[in-house]
């Protein structure tokens, strides 16, 4: 790889999620809940030498207009246990899950992730998210107890407490953490981690989120996937590291990205168009328009024009991060686009909501990914396929060899087997003032 003009590309396999990106109407779409789907997906990613497989966390089923949202794939496993089951059917690939710092307790997170590290030989990671709303809280003991402003305070204390518990793992030492949000005492009983501690991933985008990332995160999962916007985000976050005394290489920036392949570029574009129409069915287009317009549009013909009236300010979707900005501005932009390009309501939604995607022949996609990493748009990508469980198969069979030919991708996992080794991240310096190893034996 030393002769290559490219930097090594890191790849993460995101199990298809519970939103309209995931296509369930395709005849090839399999179960989103059977373990065999997770096994197929993780083993495919491992065959493709990905850094890790990544799973989101579900804390409540989504609702729209006060009823369960029934148009998207829904229903997913408990994150930690399905990762543990995947540890048993994989050997090398990392296993990373989203876990809320609000609705999980640090002592439980420390021992569950510590166990995942023990079961997998040090392949675990934790994507810290800071959900705090009362809708999710309705399923938990303390409800929506946390003000928005306190969520990063809570997240920081949960991460600090969890790291202290990890540092004491295997020692029999008691850990007391007494903060404003976290006040606990425990003697951790999981084994010490083979990789120092599980890798910390974070997905915040706000200035507070970026500062949190600069202080704690080792990988950032971001939506800034392309071009100048990606480069600016990359510079901004890496720039914040120095203030916390960290090295640039101690943090990887990995945006989410879709991909569509074809034997020719034209075929890939046609495939992308077909997938976009599967993702945004007529009813899904109406559902997304309702989120912008803030009102019931069940009578709207998705193949006709956009609504003729202005949006009202109301939040109809619960359980999902708001996908659109200011409703009036969004509606105005969509109307202008529809008029300019003669688009139906559904076509506007398709044209404006599709995720950043790499579209082309396997060689074109490989080259574009390698160039983006070379140009420091990112250090790699979290790939989000649109099909469960086979969505990565073609990428692994066709794009990975192209990346390898470019000298932009590994041809084997590193000899040392932990996730930290795969990502090329430094091992943490011991933070515990505990009993040194071997004393008193």
């Amino acid at each position, binding site marked *: 790889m030393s002769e290559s003009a490219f930097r090594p590309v890191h790849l993460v396999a995101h199990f298809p999620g519970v939103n309209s990106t995931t296509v369930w109407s395709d005849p090839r779409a399999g179960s989103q809940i059977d373990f065999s789907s997770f096994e197929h997906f993780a083993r495919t990613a491992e065959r493709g030498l990905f850094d890790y497989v990544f799973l989101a966390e579900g804390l409540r*089923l989504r609702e729209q207009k006060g009823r369960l949202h*029934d148009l998207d794939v829904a229903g997913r496993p408990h994150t930690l246990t*399905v990762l543990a089951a995947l540890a*048993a059917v994989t050997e090398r690939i990392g296993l990373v899950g989203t876990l809320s710092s609000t609705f999980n307790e640090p002592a439980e997170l420390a021992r569950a992730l510590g*166990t995942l590290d023990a079961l997998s030989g040090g392949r675990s990671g934790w994507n810290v998210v800071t959900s705090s709303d009362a809708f999710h809280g309705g399923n938990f003991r303390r409800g929506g107890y946390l003000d928005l402003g306190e969520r990063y305070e809570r997240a920081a204390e949960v991460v600090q407490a969890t790291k202290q518990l990890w540092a004491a793992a295997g*020692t029999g030492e008691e850990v007391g953490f007494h903060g404003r949000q976290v006040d606990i005492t*425990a*003697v951790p*009983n999981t084994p010490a981690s083979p990789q120092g501690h599980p890798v910390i991933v974070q997905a915040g985008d706000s200035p507070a989120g970026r500062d949190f990332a600069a202080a704690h995160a080792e990988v950032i999962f971001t939506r800034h996937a392309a071009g100048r916007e990606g480069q600016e985000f990359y510079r901004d976050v890496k720039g914040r590291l120095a203030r916390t005394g960290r090295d640039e290489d101690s943090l990887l920036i990995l945006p989410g990205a879709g991909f569509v392949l074809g034997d020719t570029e034209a075929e890939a574009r046609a495939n992308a168009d077909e997938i976009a129409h599967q993702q945004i069915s007529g009813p899904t287009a109406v559902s997304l328009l309702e989120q912008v317009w803030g009102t019931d549009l069940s009578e709207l013909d998705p193949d006709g024009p956009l609504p003729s009236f202005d949006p009202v300010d109301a939040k109809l979707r619960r359980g999902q991060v708001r996908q659109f900005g200011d409703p009036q501005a969004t509606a105005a932009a969509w109307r202008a686009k529809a008029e300019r390009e003669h688009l139906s309501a559904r076509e506007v939604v398709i044209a404006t909501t599709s995720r950043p995607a790499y579209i082309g022949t396997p060689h074109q996609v490989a080259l574009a990914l390698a160039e983006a990493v070379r140009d420091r748009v990112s250090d790699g990508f979290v790939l989000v396929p649109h099909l469960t469980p086979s969505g990565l198969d073609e990428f692994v069979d066709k794009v990975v060899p192209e990346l390898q030919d470019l000298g932009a991708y590994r041809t084997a996992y590193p000899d040392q087997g932990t996730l930290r080794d795969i990502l090329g991240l430094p091992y943490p310096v011991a933070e515990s003032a505990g009993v040194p190893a071997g004393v008193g034996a």
Partner: protein
Amino acid sequence: MSTTQSPGRGFAVALSLDSATLQAPTLAALSSAVLAAEAAGVDAVLLPDRITEAPATGATADGAAGTGARQAPVQRLDAALAAAALGPLAHSIGLIPQITSAVTEPFHVATALQTIDHASLGRAGLALRPGLDPAERAAVNIWEPTQRPDEAAERAAVLQDAVDSLEAIERLWDSWEEDAIIRDVATGRFLDRERIHDAAYTGHRFSVEGASITPRSPQGRPPVLVRVRDEDELPLAAHADIVVLAADATVGAEQVRAAREHLLLWAELPLTRPDALASLPPVYDGVLLAPAPGSPLPADLSDALARAVAAARARTTERTAAEATPADHTTGTVSASAHPTLRHRLSLPEAVNPYTAARHAEEATHV
């Protein structure tokens, strides 16, 4: 679906396998012990667990610990994750992680067990323990510290909370009907939202509003196991499928059995004395074998288990002959099904979703 089959005609053998007793806290050591138990014909493995330990002797800064010899720190695996990892590795043995209701959110317990059930194709069980040690509650932030601890009141509150947790968990397990996923391309609907139901549970200390995020698992309701020692713990039995009666229990076996229909009653026996199995009173439906506290797994684990399973099979034969009914699926007569569930193996009736049952009953009256 529904069946009048009474459970427990076969005599079950379960092994209590504390990961702290393994040679090393690794998946290889764990699966090797569990696969040995599976090969010996053991019906289920129970994985004991707790979130915190007493500080290792001499390891605390305040030096409050005793004067005894220094012991190696306990190294244990989270039982739910260990059971999940065993799911794809074992093929017929039941996997019953112990989870503490005073520590783990009911929502997390419910979805974790559903996930283990999916990963094991229907072999999960839940051993719920209340968490009566104050040290466990101090490890999490969900219990308000009391100014003047009233031990009796705290114990009552923790036990009530365990009963409430079991009820919330049952509702979450039933929240998705089996046919809730419809994938109806014509209408664009993935779900039939009428077949998913909020838990809508309010207990003494918490509430759970929504449905589970996990679709109904192969068993619907994985068997629930509780350990009962005294009368205060008896309300747990009303939500259980299996009750392990503590060796030093102050309540009687018949008293426990009266708590619920189709309840399996298991005795606790030391792993070193499988012969004692033969002399248990007939009220028992099975045994939970456990190594002596703090001692490692015996080198001859397979032999000890094989002796216990042989004794259990003899009891099954006796019971079957006494009742003059065909042998069932417990120990030694595993079903011909490719993937027997734990409920099936223990001859527990299939779990019927109450919403589905009500819908079918209503449809029947309209025909």
